[in-house]
């Protein structure tokens, strides 16, 4: 039945779409004005949803047209949907403020292409994401995924250059393959159970050929859209080539849509048929993403590509929750889910901030070569601060959201006795620290001459980026006050501070071992690393970079996707 306040869920989806229609019709400068109004309204709706859920003390349900499933479609919001909805709203607000400097319609023109497309599609992505979060129907979710893809792809090629057009086409084709696999799975589930409603399916689902094939196909298809290694061929060029504001949307939000659907599927639809091996496989892919993404990030010459590869790695963290949640103990499932969601929203805010800072640095310098960053620390202190704060948030230092997330996940790992995921998380933190330290070291080296910004950087844009980074950093406090139990206790103990120090020093050592180009620092920490050691470690890093290059060839990526689907099918059949 529809709950009080359920209408808000329909509004959360419809209001951004109304904004798209209005902006598109009125055109020109009005598109931006409409976007601003819609962003305020959308944020209000997200907050109202939170208030309504607080009041009812549970989830919201809305039956569209008054028709109950299986014939009709229900919108539902639970805890995970709510936190994601709030995070999406906050990030969209930040990006909207940031993009004002880049996507104004120039004077003397009635309407320009890039601003109209950007503002309408920004709202389009928002509506589609909210639909992904609240839809309770597998087919409506398919339409939502396609809406998300159609809105995201044009943002990649907004500058119309050949390279970005190619990235956009690769992205579109691979994403389409992913969604067609998802649809195939949904079709099989309908054939087996006669409904597409998530709640009804959860009650009816039993292991069987059609169900297992559906689970494997849907998981594989969604992983392709999320760009989990080895299915990441499209992500680095697409996210690095787009304008900064668009990169922030794509990296911070769009990939979370398909990731959230994997969570929905595994936690709400499939628990009855999941097996230990399938969850371990998903976690193993996450671990591979963390290793590959982080190391290849260290070897990038350009800042935006570094940030894009950092996203490849961070996607990996988002999948560590699955083996922890389905590793046995039912109690661990709750904390793994909470940890995973927290990880997702801290990454959404931090990564958006990071891309925005990188975009401002690019705008000011006219390039974003990491080796050419010397002197930026003095010229653009706020941008560098934003980058570092976002990096600290990603590393998981207290009081960031990622710190709390890590604690929750480590707790789940201990509870289920899966020490190996503990090790993966610790190593991941170290690797994340390494590229943040590397960029910081480059930026803080004094330049030969004082860096003169070629273009003025908008103060408003700087503030928006910094605010998002601070959000991510303060998320731990919010989680603490929202009742996640004693997550921040001991955050300032000597042990925790020592841990943070180890992370940063260790990160510096890792960077000096694996990074391609080191900043011209005076002798010290970096030189302490022996040359022979660095020679060996560089070979390893180069090998990983080559692996990445091979994995991102189309035939290999296509094969990987289908092989993964087959592997998931096999893992789902392996029940004890």
């Amino acid at each position: 039945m529809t709950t009080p306040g359920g209408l808000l869920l329909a509004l959360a989806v419809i209001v951004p779409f109304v904004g798209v229609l209005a902006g598109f019709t009125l055109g020109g400068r009005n598109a931006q004005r409409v976007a601003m109004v819609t962003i305020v309204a959308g944020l209000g709706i997200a907050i109202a949803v939170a208030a309504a859920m607080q009041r009812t003390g549970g989830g919201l349900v809305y039956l569209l047209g008054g028709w109950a499933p299986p014939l009709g479609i229900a919108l539902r919001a639970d805890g995970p949907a709510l936190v994601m909805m709030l995070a999406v709203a906050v990030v969209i607000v930040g990006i909207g403020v940031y993009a004002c400097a880049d996507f104004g319609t120039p004077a003397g023109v009635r309407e320009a292409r890039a601003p109209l497309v950007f503002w309408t599609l920004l709202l389009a992505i928002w509506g589609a994401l909210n639909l992904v979060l609240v839809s309770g129907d597998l087919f409506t979710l398919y339409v939502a995924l396609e809406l998300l893809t159609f809105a995201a792809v044009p943002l990649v090629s907004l500058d119309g250059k050949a390279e970005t057009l190619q990235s956009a086409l690769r992205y579109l084709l691979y994403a389409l393959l992913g969604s067609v696999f998802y649809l195939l799975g949904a079709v099989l589930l309908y054939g087996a159970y006669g409904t597409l409603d998530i709640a009804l399916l959860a009650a009816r689902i039993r292991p069987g050929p059609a169900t297992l094939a559906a689970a494997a196909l849907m998981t594989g298809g969604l992983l392709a859209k999320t760009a989990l290694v080895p299915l990441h061929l499209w992500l680095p060029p697409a996210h690095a080539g787009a304008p900064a504001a668009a990169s922030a949307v794509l990296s911070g939000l769009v990939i979370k849509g398909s990731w959230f659907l994997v969570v929905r599927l595994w936690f709400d639809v499939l628990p009855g048929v999941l097996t230990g091996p399938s969850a371990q496989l998903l976690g193993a892919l996450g671990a591979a993403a963390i290793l590959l993404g982080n190391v290849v990030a260290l070897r990038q010459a350009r800042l935006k590509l570094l940030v894009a590869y950092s996203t490849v790695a961070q996607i990996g963290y988002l999948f560590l929750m699955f083996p922890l949640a389905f590793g046995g103990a039912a109690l661990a499932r709750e904390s793994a889910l909470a940890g995973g969601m927290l990880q997702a929203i801290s990454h959404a805010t931090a990564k958006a901030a990071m891309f925005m800072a990188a975009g401002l640095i690019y705008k000011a310098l006219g390039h974003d070569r990491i080796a050419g960053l010397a002197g930026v620390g003095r010229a653009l202190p706020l941008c560098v601060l934003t980058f570092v704060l976002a990096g600290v948030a990603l590393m998981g230092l207290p009081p960031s959201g990622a710190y709390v997330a890590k604690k929750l996940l480590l707790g789940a790992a201990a509870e289920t006795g899966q020490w190996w995921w503990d090790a993966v998380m610790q190593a991941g933190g170290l690797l994340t620290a390494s590229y943040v330290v590397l960029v910081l070291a480059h930026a803080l080296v004094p330049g030969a001459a004082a860096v003169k910004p070629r273009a003025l950087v908008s103060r408003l844009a700087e503030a928006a980026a910094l605010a998002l980074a601070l959000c991510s950093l303060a998320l731990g406090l919010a989680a603490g006050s929202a009742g996640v139990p004693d997550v921040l206790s001991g955050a300032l103990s000597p042990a925790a501070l020592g841990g943070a120090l180890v992370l940063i020093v260790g990160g510096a050592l890792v960077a000096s071992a694996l990074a391609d180009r080191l900043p011209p620092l005076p002798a010290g920490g970096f030189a302490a690393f022996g040359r022979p050691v660095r020679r060996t470690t560089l070979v390893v890093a180069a090998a990983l970079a080559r692996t990445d290059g091979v994995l991102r060839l189309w035939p290999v990526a296509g094969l990987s996707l289908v092989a993964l689907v087959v592997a998931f099918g096999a893992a789902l059949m392996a029940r004890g």
Partner: protein
Amino acid sequence: MTDAINCGLAILILALAAWTIVARDTFSAVVGFVAYGLLLALVWVQLHGVDVALTEAALGSGLTGALLLYAAARLRATEREARAERPGLPTRVAAALVAACVTVALGIAVLALPDPAPTLAPQTAASIATTGVGNPLTAVLVAFRAMDTLLEAIVVLFALIGVWSLAPDRFWGGRPGTLHHSDPDGVLAYFARVLPPIGVVVGVYIFWVGADFPGGKFQGATLLAAMWLLAVIAGLADTPPIGRTWLRAALVAGPVVFLAVGAAGVAFAGAFLGYPDGYAKPLIKVIEWALFPSLALTLALIVAGAPQRSAP
């Protein structure tokens, strides 16, 4: 007898699909795809989905085919380059292997589907009376699952924005496609003069009967779009400049009316996209009448492509 027809149809379809996969030349592969789409429409008839058959023939084979044929002709020059990139034997063997795995798994899943099959036909039958329409698909599309149809009307608009976003900046606000000239006495111009009136009548008819019989707005709109495109290709009509406010308004009119009726449902029927008792059929008619021209225009402009000329 039907068995023989079905087997023959299945074999033909598989053969044509194989042709689109193995053909050396892309253009002939696409021609095979168009024929394959038309045969698929027959499959839908065999599976008792006449509405789907109409959609498949008009959209899946017709408009999609036109798009692909045009692209194949334009991209002739890239054939050689593409052949050089063909992956080696190990990759092809591996691809064949994983594809075979998927096919076998799907085949097993199909054979293992439950009997009797779960179906929503009883629920549809029990509720269709409240909507007043006779075609159960229309009831599903505009009442029970109206959200999907609303989203679909929005999807086509997103696709159009996406296509337009690919315009070079200098042509923004201009007309899509290149300017077409054709011999006014030629065969093309002849067809473009004779066919559209018939096509438009058939398209409107398909739309008109859709509430109670097979047919509907999507199928009718596709036919209308095709007729207009034919006139454009023959040089008898030109595409409108994309910056015009009337054009934008016409494009969004359908979804806007749909949204407005849906919003009115909140006040008068207690739910977004709900219909008050007794008003379902007229409101469904209103939505369909609003969506029909908007859809036709949107589909046609999606095929026409990004602006390539400045508006005069």
